[in-house]
């Protein structure tokens, strides 16, 4: 019994002359939550389609739960996969419950599960209403509900919180954490990077059909040296003296503008910068420290892939 939910070995995918994925290898363990991020056209959607068996690789091999994706037994593996597409579009002429019944029949899951799952995603009150009357958020909840049918061991979520209000996003992630605690593997894409950065165990950054970087947020931060940024609001006329106070520190950048100053420095210089700031506490009205976010990492790896390697 393999411990890997997904094993991708040297997979390439071309559409005519365009190479969407180039010699990509990736392995995802059972129970991991992996965030897949990248610019538009980085190859995320193609990789998703490949992992779901919706398109065939031009070369290489993909195994899901130990089974080859084009193998004869992949159907049984599919029963254990949940998928929420980016825009969950379903049958407007059916009610939410009927949509669930249709997908449960396709997955060979007892229909009796449907009510409980709709309640779990907060749609039980609208189960009998036609989907045509659902808001975008309700449709997304319904999509998530069908994804949970049959207690899948592997879930693919493509921009899952699209259209959800803040309460819906919170509910979504609380269900996702609950699901993960049961050992379910989750692969998730989102363009709201701040939303997933604290919720995934591993990030995979894609660029130009390849994996630009992967690891936990802290691992990625340590690999790609990005500055911490101190944003300082100063008292009137303190800017000039303040700027000069940093001249003895090497490798920092300081920009001042009237009463605002922004100091960018490496991780090793943070304490030295803080020391200077504490010496000038009397001219500081406010201070904000910003660590490199996932957005910064994403732009760093995505925009400077060649430099990072």
């Amino acid at each position, binding site marked *: 019994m393999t411990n890997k939910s997904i094993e991708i070995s040297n997979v390439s995918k071309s559409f005519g002359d365009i190479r969407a994925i180039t010699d990509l290898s990736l392995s995802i363990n059972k129970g991991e939550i992996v965030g897949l991020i990248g610019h538009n056209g980085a190859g995320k959607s193609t990789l998703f389609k490949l992992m779901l*068996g919706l398109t065939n690789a031009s070369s290489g091999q993909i195994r899901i739960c130990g089974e080859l994706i084009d193998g004869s037994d992949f159907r049984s593996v599919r029963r254990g996969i949940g998928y929420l597409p980016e825009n969950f579009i379903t049958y407007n002429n059916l009610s939410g419950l009927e949509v669930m019944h249709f997908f449960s*029949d396709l997955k060979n899951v007892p229909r009796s599960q449907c009510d409980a799952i709709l309640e779990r995603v907060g749609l039980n009150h609208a189960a009998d209403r036609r989907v045509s009357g659902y808001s975008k958020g309700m449709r997304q909840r319904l999509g998530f509900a069908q994804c949970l049918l049959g207690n899948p061991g592997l879930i693919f979520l493509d921009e899952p919180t699209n259209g959800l209000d803040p309460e819906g996003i919170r509910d979504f992630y609380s269900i996702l954490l609950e699901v993960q605690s049961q050992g379910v593997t989750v692969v998730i894409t989102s363009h709201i990077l701040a939303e997933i950065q604290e919720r995934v165990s591993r990030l995979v950054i894609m660029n130009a059909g390849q994996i630009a970087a992967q690891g936990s947020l802290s691992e990625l931060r340590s690999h790609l040296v990005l500055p911490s940024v101190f944003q300082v609001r100063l008292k009137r006329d303190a800017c000039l003296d303040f700027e000069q106070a940093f001249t003895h520190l090497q490798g920092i950048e300081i920009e001042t503008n009237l009463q605002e100053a922004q100091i960018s420095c490496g991780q090793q210089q943070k304490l030295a910068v803080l020391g200077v700031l504490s010496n000038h506490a009397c001219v500081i009205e406010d201070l904000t420290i910003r660590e490199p976010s996932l957005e910064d990492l994403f732009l760093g790896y995505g925009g400077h892939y060649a430099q990072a390697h």
Partner: protein
Amino acid sequence: MHRRIEWALIRVIAGKEFRDRIRNRWVLAVAIIFALFALAIAYFGAAQQGEVGFKNINVTIASLVSLVIYLVPLIALLLGYDAIIGEKEHGSMDLLLSMPVTRFELLLGKYLGLAAALASSTAIGFGVGLLPLISSIDMHDFVNYAGFVVSSILMGLAFLSLSMLVSVSARDRVSASGAALGLWFFFVLIFDLLMMGALVVSQGYFSSSAFGAVLMLNPADVFRLLNMFDSVQIQNMVGLATVMPDGLTDPMALGAIMVAWIVVPFLLSIWRFK
């Protein structure tokens, strides 16, 4: 690689397609159209002979054939042209294909569901059209009428197969609808004109049996021939059917050709869809 066909999944997909057509009243609407035409033709069918009223089933069938040959192919093509491309454009195809269902099962399920909708509306519509004549017909007339209804359904299924091929081949719904209408024009309007033109231009160079065989390349013509129940009618039939060789007037042979018209385009659809 061998993959077992799961008929239960095909039934689920077919059931949904059929229920959708019941729900949106497609089946009802088409059945009403067929019934109204059948009743009108049954009543006015013999008007050319100076009579009106529900009198002769054979006249009714002959008149209905002329109508059905236009109507059923159009309805079948419009029913199926967006079966696959519609799902793709709608954005729901990826989700369907991520389910434990193969492309073959998906396509067959959709086809069978749509076929059930077409067959039931045709049978109900023309069934109602028979009611005013029911007291005056014998078993032979009834068999003839049943044969007409069955052959109408078979022709509909053939054009439904063609529409599935269009649906899996088209880039978008607009081009699919254009291709479907193009097929209707070709098979229902242009094909026979081309044949007659070729007959005139060739001035007897080609044998009549060769022309008869070429008629088999059009399911609408196969349907027309299926509804000519004896050789006298064949001889009297206007247009190209007068050149039919005897071998191809056998209902079993014609039925087999119609089945081929159902199966071959569907097999091509499967090949394209993969």
